[in-house]
């Protein structure tokens, strides 16, 4: 019996070989709850008359509105701290960072593991071949109460990335290209299994997290990158954690990294992906670098490299929000932050920032933002008609200097 990576992980956990289409009930390693869902999560547990079965397997992260923006939020966050204390669950407080980044840094998400998150981008853990999946408050509460979850073993779409990234492109461009090819519902209910070959195996953990992060934008249940390269250095990867040759795939797609060009996702759909050249010259009001997609140290390095010795265009607000306190610390220690600040960028507390339009950079009607995040839905960052263009940190940096959408190559030559 030949199994895909998702089937491997779920089979291991179920204690028997399971195939796509079967229903399984499996133990989970971590149940991750974000601040904005915590209230519903507590309520559901109460309705169940239950408390967390394994308190050490529940982590609550205060990241979606951190620090609190109003009294409602402050009350909710106060309750999170008290509840966490009472039940012995981990609470990562204001400033620690975005849930997905924090769970990876804390090694609570590990290769071969299963992490359920109350946030759709829980697919991110797949970057390290951890079965990460997002669910709603009720499912998350059931998982906390029982230590288990039930799922349908997903079919798998195989995406092979080949070659080394073309100059000027990043893992974000590769991820956007994948979403363009698959479309917003091209992998609904499925696992996206990503194979990195012919040079692509050199993609770092951070870049793999970016790929896996975007997989939910094709509707995927999880997005798993087959372990290789840096992952083998950072983790003790179990030897069963590979798909079998001969595994059955619902669909197979190839993406050639060597011929990739910078991409941008145009409002109001993530799969509305174009070459940057197509929207070049579009004037912007705000540039946002951060989020669980692209707020890591290597992302800030790429931005700093382009901003070094230059200035953000007059009239453009450039917001930078490191994905975690660890990223912030490292970017401070190596001088990256100073470069960014000298260029005229401003800094926010590690967390989600304005990604979902709740605080710290909400857009006014008619405004245009280039963001390194993962969603450009109507009204996501503020006013219903404000436009969000999703791009790589490099394109975001060049755009901040120019004041209009462009690439560093166009702007600076080379």
């Amino acid at each position: 019996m030949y199994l895909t990576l998702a089937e491997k992980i779920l089979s291991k956990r179920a204690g028997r070989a399971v195939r796509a289409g079967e229903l399984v009930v499996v133990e989970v390693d971590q149940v991750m709850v974000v601040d904005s869902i915590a209230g519903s999560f507590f309520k559901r547990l109460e309705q169940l008359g239950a408390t967390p079965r394994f308190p050490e397997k529940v982590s609550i992260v205060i990241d979606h509105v951190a620090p609190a923006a109003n009294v409602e939020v402050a009350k909710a966050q106060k309750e999170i701290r008290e509840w966490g204390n009472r039940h012995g669950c981990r609470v990562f407080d204001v400033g620690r960072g975005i849930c997905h980044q924090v769970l990876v840094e804390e090694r609570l998400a590990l290769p071969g593991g299963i992490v359920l998150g109350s946030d759709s981008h829980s697919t991110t853990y797949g970057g390290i071949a951890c079965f990460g999946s997002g669910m709603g408050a009720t499912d998350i509460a059931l998982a906390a109460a029982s230590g288990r979850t039930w799922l349908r073993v997903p079919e798998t779409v195989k995406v092979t990335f080949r070659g080394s990234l073309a100059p000027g492109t990043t893992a974000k461009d590769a991820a956007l290209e994948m979403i363009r090819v698959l479309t917003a519902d091209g992998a609904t209910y499925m696992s996206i299994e990503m194979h990195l070959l012919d040079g692509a195996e050199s993609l770092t953990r951070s870049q793999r997290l970016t790929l896996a992060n975007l997989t939910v934008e094709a509707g995927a249940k999880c997005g798993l990158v087959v372990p290789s390269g840096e992952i083998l250095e950072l983790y003790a990867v179990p030897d069963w954690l590979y798909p079998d040759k001969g595994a059955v795939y619902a669909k197979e797609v190839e993406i050639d990294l060597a011929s990739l060009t910078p991409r941008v996702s145009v409002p109001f759909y993530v799969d509305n992906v174009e070459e940057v050249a197509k929207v070049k010259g579009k004037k912007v009001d705000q540039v946002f670098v951060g989020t669980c997609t692209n707020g890591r140290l290597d992302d800030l390095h790429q931005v700093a490299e382009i901003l070094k010795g230059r200035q953000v265009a007059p009239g453009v607000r450039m917001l930078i929000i490191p994905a975690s306190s660890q990223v912030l610390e490292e970017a401070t220690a190596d001088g990256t932050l100073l470069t960014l600040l000298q260029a005229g960028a401003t800094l926010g507390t590690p967390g989600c920032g304005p990604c979902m339009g709740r605080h710290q950079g909400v857009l006014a009607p008619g405004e245009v933002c280039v963001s390194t995040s993962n969603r450009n839905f109507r009204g996501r960052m503020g006013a219903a008609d404000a436009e969000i263009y999703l791009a790589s940190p490099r394109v975001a940096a060049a755009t901040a200097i120019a004041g209009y959408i462009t690439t560093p190559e166009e702007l600076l030559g080379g």
Partner: protein
Amino acid sequence: MPRVWKFGDAINTDDILPGKYAPFMVGEDKFHTYAFAHFRPDFAPNYRPGDILVCGKNIGLGSSREYAPEALRKLGLKAIIAKSYARIFYRNLVNLGIMPFEAPEVVDALQDGDEVELDFEQGLLRRGAETFRLRPPPAFLLEALKEGSILEYYRKYGRFPGESAEG
């Protein structure tokens, strides 16, 4: 009589309930009044309990926020008929006890504002003299929906639908 609110393809959770109007931001008692606030501002003030949502492909894509379908339930929604559903949204509907019917032909036949009657038991939708048959959701989901919601199911049986009683 219940009426049809018809929407197109790819209605995302930010359309259904923008993140800034989460219960967490505006309070448990108010968030549902912002359902479709950007996308169709006439919805929340005019929706009547029992009215049916009829949607195109991939409804509910995006965020895992259960409070999006919860806002609809709070307004009185009991069923959606769509061409297809995004994964997390589908689970959330079942968990909240909202019936997710998948019926592309029926979606195409219905118009915004149609007056209809839905017979859950039989899976029949009537519009005037016409009757449409709706395929029920998979058996294991019905098992949960029969109890009202997955929470009630779990409370009653101490296990998940489809899981063997000993397991």
